[in-house]
């Protein structure tokens, strides 16, 4: 494959470090000639794991963190450019290739820059110190007399200089990351903090960008996997004659793992549609209609207190003048909803495998694929290629496993493309969440006691990876369990109420396979907490903004809330807004706040809505967000993440719900599972707070957390009706307006 990244010079030279891997592993080329780096150091405590300087002065950056469209591809370059002191256009980047990049953990949790970038920054800073030391030896001067400038070490008096290429070109640094290596002075940043354009955008908008889905290998077969008609069903019989009319199509069956392959992709599609197979049995799914009741009635694996302070006895024995309030909030199962269904390409031959995947965790999944294939991990290489967006873990790893098993069975490279129905039906889902909250409000309108009880599906301890669909179907043993992400965070109020008791009740089951989905758990938790704060403010007859500010002690939190209020022209008054109940359209405003994961990014979100009473349709007319994620490497990329968080979460809150019957998911296309469309997109105003001296806190997730609460608060302000169950579809809003339970 060739990538069109004309703005970025190709890396030159050859870095020769250690022995090369066997040539059969050397097929993949994520950038031209990437495999010339095979055998390079990979240990994440070594500078050479991250950086190579070539004989022409260009630089290759090896990142274990990948860019799913978030901007890491430019931001990581900016970090290296700043700390190593080279121009960003001199840097080529290789991402997520297990044979070439250090294992920096999955690209998840909004930690791509906060952790991965910070590690890289230290590597580049260490590298610059190593170059200064080399320069000192070369120039016969003390390091204190030297400085760096755009790929050159020179004396501060300008007398002598040596280029990086001359000092180290194509040779190893040979040094460990120095956690004390001095970082550049933020006041003199040249690249960090600038909105440099992303190198992948020109190719993406001209159809030249190469996605995983576009990868073809010599001799590659196209495959479609046929999932069972019911979860856990066993394959009894396959009628291979049913696809006899499709040229070159062939059935592959391993126990209940069933696929068709063909030389031509359309023939694989046709064969998959035509194939007759007989299935039996299955494991009935729970009843979708009673999901939340069954969660509340579930056995509890364990209770986990998140915040406990003071005395909440006022909830059960309120004193005179104390009012109590209780509400339950429900968040349904969601699909990741990537626009392109998952794809996987694998080449397994003999005792070696190369797997191409859009996985956010190629390093983590290498061992998993190896186990399924019965290979040693060092014989498996996983190479990241861009997929169609990724917001946690969609079907990518499963599709890769599909491809790997098929390639092993057939001895040829195989590309598996999931269908739309496969993706909606079988991608691991965002888990359902149920939160019940209680508060006691004293005669002054103060929160005398707060209680959260959150019923959340538990993650299995030490689960090495999400169990693969294909491995289960093929009866290949694998660790069983579920993963949901850190979904317990932000179940407590971010305000300094004296008496708080917030507890997670971990439940063992979820209706479908689960995986982390963007901002795992925090969107639903903030929806419940920040809506309930609004309910309390309304009960107390207080302004929703003032009610929050009164007990918010974090000055950065106060700042984001005040910025949103100022921009919205927030008028202090209680909700709901006095309105004519007969007006066809009710309008209102809402606000919500999150301190993400309790100590990371701070976000305030304001929203204005119109609710059409007759139809129940909600129209979001304005979104205002203030966002403090500490140091921003590339503010425009942060802005894009904020916009994406807002729109994706509006989509989830307004429209989305996975529905299933006792056998399978029934919402398997975009009609049954609608998402936000262009006509609905509101204007979004974003205020970004740059803190050059602060650590970066991450922008990939936080702004999604307060979206649903701001929306529900705005609907309440407009209509006096409180929406507590997502999605806020028109029929549900209509029912709520009519006084039926919502």
């Amino acid at each position, binding site marked *: 494959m060739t990538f*069109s990244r*004309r703005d970025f010079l190709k890396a030159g030279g050859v870095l020769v470090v250690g022995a090369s891997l066997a040539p059969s592993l050397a097929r993949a080329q994520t950038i031209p000639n990437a495999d010339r780096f095979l055998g390079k150091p990979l240990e994440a405590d070594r500078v050479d794991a991250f950086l190579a300087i070539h004989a022409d002065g260009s630089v290759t950056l090896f990142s274990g963190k990948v860019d*799913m*469209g*978030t901007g890491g591809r430019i931001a990581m370059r900016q970090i290296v450019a700043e700390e190593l002191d080279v121009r960003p256009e001199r840097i080529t980047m290789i991402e997520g290739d297990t044979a070439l990049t250090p294992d920096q953990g999955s690209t998840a949790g909004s930690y791509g820059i906060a952790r991965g970038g910070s590690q890289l920054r230290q590597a580049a800073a260490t590298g610059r110190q190593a170059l200064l030391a080399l320069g000192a030896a070369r120039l016969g001067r003390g390091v204190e007399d030297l400085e760096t400038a755009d790929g050159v070490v020179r004396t501060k008096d300008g007398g002598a200089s040596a280029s990086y290429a001359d000092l180290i070109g194509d040779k190893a640094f040979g040094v460990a990351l120095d956690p004390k290596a001095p970082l550049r002075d933020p006041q003199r940043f040249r690249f960090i903090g600038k909105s440099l*354009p*992303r190198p*992948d*955008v*020109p*190719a*993406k*908008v*001209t*159809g*030249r*960008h*190469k*996605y995983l*889905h576009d990868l*073809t290998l010599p001799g590659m077969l196209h495959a479609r996997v046929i999932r069972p008609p019911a979860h856990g069903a066993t394959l009894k019989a396959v009628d291979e004659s049913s696809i006899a009319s*499709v*040229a070159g199509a062939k059935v592959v069956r391993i126990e209940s793992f069933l696929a068709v392959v063909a030389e*031509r*992709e*359309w*023939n694989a*599609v046709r064969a998959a549609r035509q194939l007759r197979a007989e299935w039996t049995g299955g494991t009935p799914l729970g009843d979708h209609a009673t999901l939340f009741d069954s969660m509340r009635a579930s056995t509890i694996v364990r209770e986990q207190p998140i915040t406990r302070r003071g005395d909440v006895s006022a909830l059960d024995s309120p004193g005179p003048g104390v009012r109590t309030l209780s509400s339950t909030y429900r968040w349904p199962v969601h699909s990741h909803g*990537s*626009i*392109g*269904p998952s794809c996987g390409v694998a080449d397994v031959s003999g005792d070696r495998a190369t797997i191409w995947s859009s996985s956010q965790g190629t390093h983590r999944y290498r061992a998993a694929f190896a186990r399924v294939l019965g290979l040693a991990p060092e014989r498996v290489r996983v190479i990241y290629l*861009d*997929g*169609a*967006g*990724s*917001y946690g873990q969609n079907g990518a790893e499963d599709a890769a496993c599909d491809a790997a098993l098929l390639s092993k069975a057939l001895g040829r490279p195989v590309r598996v*493309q999931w*269908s*739309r129905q496969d993706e909606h039906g079988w991608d691991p889902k965002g888990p359902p969440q149920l939160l019940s909250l209680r508060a006691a409000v004293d005669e002054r309108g103060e929160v005398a006691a707060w209680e959260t009880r959150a019923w959340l599906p538990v993650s299995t301890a030490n689960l090495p990876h999400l169990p693969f669909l294909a491995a289960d179907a093929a009866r290949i043993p694998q660790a069983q369990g579920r993963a949901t992400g850190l979904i317990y965070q932000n179940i407590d109020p971010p305000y300094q109420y004296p008496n708080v008791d917030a507890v997670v009740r971990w439940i063992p089951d979820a209706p479908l396979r689960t995986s982390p989905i963007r901002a795992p758990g925090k969107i639903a938790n903030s929806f419940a907490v920040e809506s309930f704060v609004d309910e309390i403010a309304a009960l107390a007859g207080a302004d929703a903004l003032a009610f929050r500010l009164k007990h918010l002690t974090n000055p950065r939190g106060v700042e984001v809330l005040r910025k949103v209020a100022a921009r919205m022209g927030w008028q202090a008054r209680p909700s709901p807004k006095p309105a004519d109940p007969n007006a066809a359209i009710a309008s209102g405003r809402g606000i919500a706040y999150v301190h993400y994961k309790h100590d990371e990014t701070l976000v305030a979100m304001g929203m204005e809505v119109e609710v059409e009473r007759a139809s129940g349709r909600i129209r979001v007319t304005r979104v205002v967000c203030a966002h403090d994620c500490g140091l921003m490497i590339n503010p*425009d990329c942060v802005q*894009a993440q904020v*916009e*994406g*968080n*807002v*729109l*994706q979460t509006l*989509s989830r809150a307004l429209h989305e719900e996975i529905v299933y019957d006792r056998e399978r998911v029934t919402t398997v*296309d*975009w*009609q049954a599972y609608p*998402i936000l*469309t*262009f*006509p609905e*997109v509101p*204007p*979004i105003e974003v205020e970004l707070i740059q803190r050059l001296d602060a650590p970066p806190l991450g922008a990939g997730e936080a702004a999604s957390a307060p979206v649903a609460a701001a929306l529900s608060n705005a609907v309440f302000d407009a209509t006096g009706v409180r929406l507590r169950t997502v999605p806020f579809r028109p029929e549900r809003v209509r029912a709520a307006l009519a006084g039926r339970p919502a």
Partner: protein
Amino acid sequence: MATLKITVNATARTVELDDPETPLLYVLRNDLGLTGTHFGCGLSQCGACTVLIDGRATRSCVTPTSSVQTRAVTTIEGLGSPERPDPIQAAFIAEQAAQCGYCTSGMVVAARALLQQNRRPNEAQVREALAGNLCRCGSHARVIRAVLRAAAGGR
């Protein structure tokens, strides 16, 4: 095996197909190497596979190749290149109007069809023209700005 002659990006091409009803999408991607047109649903629901057929935005995932033999097919690659983007693509670059970018080709092509019919669409018309193009990353606001920028001559 059927031999079909089609015209793609103003070039006459001949393809050999087992099934002449093969959706155009697969022919573009696998026979002609034009992988900028993307598979999203195969159901005409998402717009990722949009191409122009005689200037009209069309879902190539449900368009039989046999039906386009006398018509002009234009794909995202036929509009411009990274080195020489067309005005809409240039506007998308200026607005950085893509995240994962998987849905972007279809939006650029749909925008081209719109601007051919209506040189100066207002914002509501842009939104309406893109109503059938889905985006999951949430780049919509930038896409709208990019199309309006292109309509205003790049400013």
